[in-house]
């Protein structure tokens, strides 16, 4: 008899989803953002495969064909080594996106652990953890990431570790604040009153209710993480060529401006579009998931 009501459970969830989707659809910009992110994800998966000149992606050069302007054969032109810029830009997508994702993932996991510990326990644990993350926040994240990346040496993994180390305090602050707020909710007092263990209170009653702001921050941070990855590449302490990376491409192309502007403009635009997409999507998600920020 009770099983029959399980269908209620599903229909209720579907109804909630439909409402969320309705709100999301209300904002045309977030839909555009979602479409852009879908494109970015598509190129992340297939960019290297679909590139018209895969041999250039692997480091092949074509010195006879240096700096040719955008044409039908090379819509984005070619660079100082005669490599097809379109192929490099397409193949750069997985590098930036996976690095960005890894940074946000590691940063948020670390930050959620630290923030939840601090906010839930309070007392000296809170003091120590929060003093430390405040300290990290005082350091400009880019300089910190640069220092760590330089100390660790170049390389994809090192770069991710370096940026993620500068990234977690933001999540720790956010999560701690949310936990502190959720801890005062009446339903948490109710859970404690029925004898729930601290572990249960944290995992069953507090954390599920603070997932939304964390997801919103993650989606907004994806864009910034991609930017930071590119910034390190631009300064010359990120990924090294021949790994195709947008920031590095831009930094090399800089010296060939203004005559060969296409070598700089197209990787830059790719970067901008990817970040723009994630930010629009994040905005839309915030409007749907975070009732306090809803306009």
């Amino acid at each position, binding site marked *: 008899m009770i099983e029959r009501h399980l269908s209620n459970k599903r229909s209720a969830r579907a109804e909630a989803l439909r409402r969320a989707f309705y709100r999301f659809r209300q904002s045309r910009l977030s839909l555009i953002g979602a479409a852009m992110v879908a494109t970015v994800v598509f190129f992340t998966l297939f960019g290297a495969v679909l590139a018209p000149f895969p041999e250039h992606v692997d480091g092949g050069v074509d010195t006879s064909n240096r700096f040719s302007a955008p044409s039908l054969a090379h819509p984005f032109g070619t660079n100082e080594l005669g490599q097809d810029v379109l192929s490099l830009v397409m193949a750069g997508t997985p590098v930036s996106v996976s690095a960005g994702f890894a940074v946000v993932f590691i940063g948020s996991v670390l930050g959620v652990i630290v923030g939840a510990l601090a906010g839930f326990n309070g007392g000296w644990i809170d003091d120590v953890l929060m003093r430390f993350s405040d300290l990290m926040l005082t350091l400009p994240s880019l300089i910190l990431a*640069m220092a760590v990346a330089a100390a660790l040496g170049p390389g994809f993994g090192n770069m991710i570790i370096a940026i993620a180390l500068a990234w977690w305090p933001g999540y720790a602050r956010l999560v701690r604040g949310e936990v502190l707020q959720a801890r005062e909710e009446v339903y948490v007092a109710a859970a404690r009153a029925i004898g729930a263990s601290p572990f249960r209170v944290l995992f069953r009653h507090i954390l599920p209710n603070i997932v939304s702001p964390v997801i919103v921050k993650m989606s907004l941070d994806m864009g910034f993480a991609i930017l930071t990855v590119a910034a390190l590449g631009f300064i010359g302490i990120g990924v090294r060529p021949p790994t195709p990376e947008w920031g590095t491409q831009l930094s090399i192309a800089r010296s060939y401006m203004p005559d060969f502007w296409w070598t700089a403009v197209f990787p830059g635009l790719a970067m901008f579009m990817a970040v723009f997409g994630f930010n629009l999507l994040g905005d839309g998600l915030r409007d749907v998931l975070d009732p306090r920020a809803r306009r």
Partner: protein
Amino acid sequence: MLRFIFRRILLILPVLFGLTVIMFVIARVLPGDPVGLAAGPNATREEIEALAREFGLDQPILGQYWTYVSGLAQGDFGTSIFTRRPVADDLAAYLPATLELVFSALLIAIVVGIPAGLMAAIWRNRWPDYLSNILSVAAISMPRFFLGLLLQLCFAMWLMWLPLGGRFPIILEPPPGVTGFYTIDALLAGDMESFQTACRYLAMPAIAMSLSPLATILRMMRAATIEVMQQDYVTTARALGLSPRLIVFKYVLRNAISSSLTLIGLYFGWLLGGTVLVETVFDWPGVGLYATSAIVAQDFMPVVSVALVIGALFISVNIVIDLLYGVINPKVRYQ
């Protein structure tokens, strides 16, 4: 009030101490071979060891740390392995340039961002709001160094209206140093020509730098204004016949600014960190460029010092913001 300021200033000290520890850990514990790099690829073992001795790098870490911190207490920031000059001198030379850039960028961001945010909120959900929304998301998404390159391409290379980079023409004498800000120094000296030159050099980097904080301040201001406009006291003011202009520009504005203020403080720190990229693009002789070249050379004394100075600046600005907050918000003041 004075006691509050004093307490806050005392609180800076442990933070600075913590910063030195963090930076030292990064600099010394992580792998890397600064001496080897500084000595050059052809240096012999003996040469490298001599260099290491000269900079105290042969001592144990705690010893190095102690030397550094006790030096700091006397205003000695150590010596750069790479430039072989005292870091303090380098900082004194580069810091004013960075501050001038950051303050101009912040000024642009505030002067444009706050009114624009207010307007977006007033015209909420109509086309000026939509436009400002798209533009601000775009501005936040724009990599600062790419924007810098585009500005250079457009205004310096094609139109040739503005200089490509640098802070002042090398052939000219910069205005006499009082504040270290060329624009203000030129004005103080009454030298309008130098002022114009300084502004022309400052324009592109400051704009490239200001766009993202501008957009963030705009969005924050918009959200804050909308929130304030939904407060009960605004309904009461409307119900009692106050004009919309009075309500918005007197009652709403103050409350909205006071909630945007904290964000501006946070953004100051972010801007300080972000100078690295813009200074690199525009060859702006500030601490960002200094830190970048030091990092690439794995020369850590300058990096530690830049981080310290930026951290101290960040905290000081936030103390000032806290005070301002108290001025605007009577509840905090009287508690």
